[in-house]
């Protein structure tokens, strides 16, 4: 599942633009992810700050 590190996130919305599922949305300064996320990791790659991470279900 996608973990949003809110202390790192710069709420810029770059991730929203590359999400093939439309699973991310930026609500003012709060990034949300819904259950359409397939953990494809495109957003984790492009984040300018490294605020997104796909974590192992078992560890969360």
């Amino acid at each position, binding site marked *: 599942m996608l973990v949003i590190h809110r202390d790192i996130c*710069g*709420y*810029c*919305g*770059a*991730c*929203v*633009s*590359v*999400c*093939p599922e*439309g699973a991310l*949305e*930026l*609500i*003012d300064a709060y990034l949300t992810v819904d259950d359409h996320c397939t953990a494809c990791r*495109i957003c984790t*790659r*492009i*984040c*300018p*700050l*490294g605020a997104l991470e796909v974590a192992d279900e078992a560890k969360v």
Partner: protein
Amino acid sequence: MKRRYDVLVVGGGPGGALAARTAAEKGLSACLIEKRPAIGVPVRCAEGIGKEALKEFIEPDDRWISAEVHGAQIVAPDGTSMTVEQKMAGSKVGYILDRKIFDRELVWQAAAAGADVFVKTRAVAPIMEDGRVRGATVAFCGEDRKVAADLVIAADGIESKFARWCGLDTTVPMRELMSCAQYVLTDIDIDPHLTVFYFGNRIAPEGYIWVFPKGERTANVGIGISGRKSKDGHRARHLLDRFIADRFPRGKMVECIVGGVSVCRPLPCTVADGLIVVGDAARLADPMTGGGIANAMITGRLAAEVAAGCISKGDVSRDALMPYDDGWRLSRMGKSLEKNYRIKEIFITLDDAKLNALIQSASRLDLKDFSVLTLVRELIQRNPKMLLELKSLYSVLK
């Protein structure tokens, strides 16, 4: 907020503001909504714009101009630099804006023209009737309201969702999303009228680092790298920090800005039944420079002009709105977007040795009669090893 408007504009950046202002000037009832609690912040921009492009829309005003740009300096990976001055750069020379004030001014103008404006108001879903967009459900401070409209103009920027909800695929390919970071640095030694661009696959893979003056000792210092080159420990922020430690170690940071800029081709179609998409939301940022302000204003205004005609005729179908899509695509802006896309695709293939060779030979040219075509022709003569790349560049430019 009324329950019905002729035009509902989603997003309060330059594209949305021009759409709302133009719609109101054309006698339409218009409402602009912005999800953030204030217009103009947070800034997500390097703030550069060409002088001529700006003057098309608003008279330059010192209140929102941070710096006037007289030339551009291009720095190769090996440090070779060339400067293009005002007299040769023509309309490319321009301003570094203060977007916080600039965006407010544009929205004030929309309001003065008669448009309603609401902040902290977010579109949460389109109202769809028989497959047509007929307005939007908007959330204002957590309270949902239905706003009917003959036409919605989606001006919701890089993180656009509205057009996607209406059935258009707006996904930016990973490699064509520039992952960007920028600091406003102060107390640094710069030329206050020169923009500087640093190229190199080590410092900014498939992108560049920019230093855009914002005053005597202040500048936007930023970086854009291709999404496919971004990875842990090697992200836009890390590469920018490395550059600043090297170049401006004593600079003081007064603002930290991150963002994404699309360098893909525009959406294949920027209209749907009851919907027009403008600016960054339509992926209209320039693929070479990443600049998006002017194109957003051009398409924001055009969208409202086309909307006025269609609403008066009572037909806002996709077909009726096509003059908007055709309009920008066939304009100088549309042609330049396609040309610059193809140039970008050639440029990103150049390794540092080729970038060095190009900038070295360009810096030795007498640029008095500077035209891009003569420049490329000269470069072909001086760089036989790069014949392939330069010939394709020449054929794009021709």
